[in-house]
């Protein structure tokens, strides 16, 4: 990461997100419950959960840093290391595998040159191979950051990569989920 980013993120979460943090804390009678929501906030801010953020959160919740660390290390969605701008998470569980998810991992390898756990040199894409994301009826699928992309074919996969590179967004992402699709509604 560049130094610029460090400067902007050097600002404490407590100053930067005062209202949001107050809102989160207001939801729980016990402060520690706000831990995962605050770790998400830190991840949104920096792209991953840094040690500095964990220390600050510990202070906010009156926990020790190891208490924060033990929780942060349990959950796969909290990245303790920086990931690329687009985090491709391809499901490899049996239901997706029956529909060819291993092929999708192969496309990532040939088209982006990265394997599981690797990031492209331009820091645009990171690949993770993950377990079931609850999209078994529309497999193979992958999640990219917050969005689901389902019923992947090579053509759709290419378009997703191209759109993400060019626009940072792709219209093939799934909206409110329903499958089979309701009458009169055709999904792309």
């Amino acid at each position, binding site marked *: 990461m560049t130094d610029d980013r460090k400067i902007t993120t050097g600002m404490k979460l407590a100053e930067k997100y005062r209202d949001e943090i107050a809102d989160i804390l207001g939801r729980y009678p016990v402060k*520690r419950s706000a831990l*995962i929501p605050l770790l998400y906030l830190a991840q949104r801010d920096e792209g991953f959960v840094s040690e500095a953020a964990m220390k600050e959160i510990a202070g906010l919740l009156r926990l020790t840093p190891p208490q924060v660390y033990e929780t942060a290390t349990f959950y*796969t969605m909290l990245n303790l290391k920086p990931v690329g701008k687009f985090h491709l998470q391809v499901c490899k569980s049996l*239901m997706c595998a*029956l529909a060819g998810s291993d092929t999708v991992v192969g496309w990532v390898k040939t088209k982006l040159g990265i394997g599981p756990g690797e990031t492209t040199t331009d820091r645009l894409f990171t690949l993770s191979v993950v377990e079931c994301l609850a999209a*078994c*009826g529309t497999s193979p699928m992958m999640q990219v950051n917050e969005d689901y992309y389902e019923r992947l074919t090579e053509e759709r996969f290419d378009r997703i990569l191209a759109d993400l590179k060019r626009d940072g967004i792709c219209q093939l992402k799934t909206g409110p989920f329903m499958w089979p699709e309701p009458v009169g509604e055709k999904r792309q």
Partner: protein
Amino acid sequence: MPKHELILLKNMMQPGYTGSLQDYERAGGYQALRKVMGKVPPAEVTAMVMKSGLRGRGGAGFPTGVKWGFLPKGYQGPRYLCCNADESEPGTFKDRQLIERDPHQILEGIVLACYAIGAETAYIYIRGEFVLGARILEQAIAEARTAGYIGTHILGTEITANVWVHRGAGAYICGEETALLESLEGKRGLPRIKPPFPATHGLYNKPTVVNNIETLANLPHIIGRGPEWFASIGSPPKSTGTRVFCVSGHVKRPGNYEVPMGVTFRELIYEQAGGMRSDKPLKAFIPGGASAPFLTPTHLDVKLDFESVAAAGSMLGSGGVTVMEEGTDMVWAALRLMEFFYHESCGKCSPCREGSSWLVQTMRRIVAKRGQMEDLETLVHLCKNIEGRTVCAFGDAEVAPIMSTLKHWRPEYVALIQAAEAANLIKLEPAVVRH
């Protein structure tokens, strides 16, 4: 027209239905809440749910009304409702659809449950990956709050029910109710030893009920149309109502299908889901999510209700039906599921933590055609030392794929090992090493 009457998916099947408050109210939504709030005593609502025969849709199938009845009587102090939207059982994707397409149906169920059990706070624990679902729920809660269905003084009464969305962060085990509570408390999601049960010592050590999203979605219908009506649907007396079954794998039309409990797998797979995707016949299916033992074509006429599937040697579980066609390598399939369980074992109990690693290594060796006959005994030995020896049901679940494929398709394991022997590879030490 669908062959069976839809209950949970009815609204969302209407053309143009968006799931907004307006759409939900127009379809008769929040009428059940209006019917009971401040008019019918909470104990009577619980009695209605008990009478309906509703059983938990998350996997264990425990009667919902009975669960509510375990809360201590006359307890002064906070109680909580936790809504399990962790939906992480491989093969299951119904809650996602119920949440994203008809969120108010769930919210009405939540407020009804809060009223019945006397909880003023409900947390919807939704799996972290469902970012869209969480956003839709937040928006629906805001709408319902403005309309007076959620918050303080619900519908002008003195009743309070606040609902919050809490996102998980990627851990299968957090679908287990006590692990969910730990996670909601900001800790690692490690299941608690039971007893004490959540009903007395749950969230923050307070009386708590944990119910699945689909379970809660049934409540407005039970209260609105009466428990007798609900109890007449499905396979009474023990499996009442409908279920949303998630069909995946080698079928023509995978997806969510709501059918009354008690229809056969044959109807679900061949009529609802359109049958096999190619001319290859069905070889195997998983009836209730990854934790349920595999079944064979001879079980196609088994009824989809709790007792019938249990009698066939498996379980109805979460309702995720995965279909595999002829030609699917069953040892490979079992390994894939085993890798899932190995990845997701929380690490609390040694038999599960160590055993899952050993099982994966032994299975990988067999699939790589480097196994030996003793490995089959090792597998069974390991499974028997995991099953029933862990704090939660994860241990029983993780042995299901291997034990059931060994039971039905043992020759496939043997063939792989014989291929290894024929290749005359160097004999490996039978002991497995962690790496």
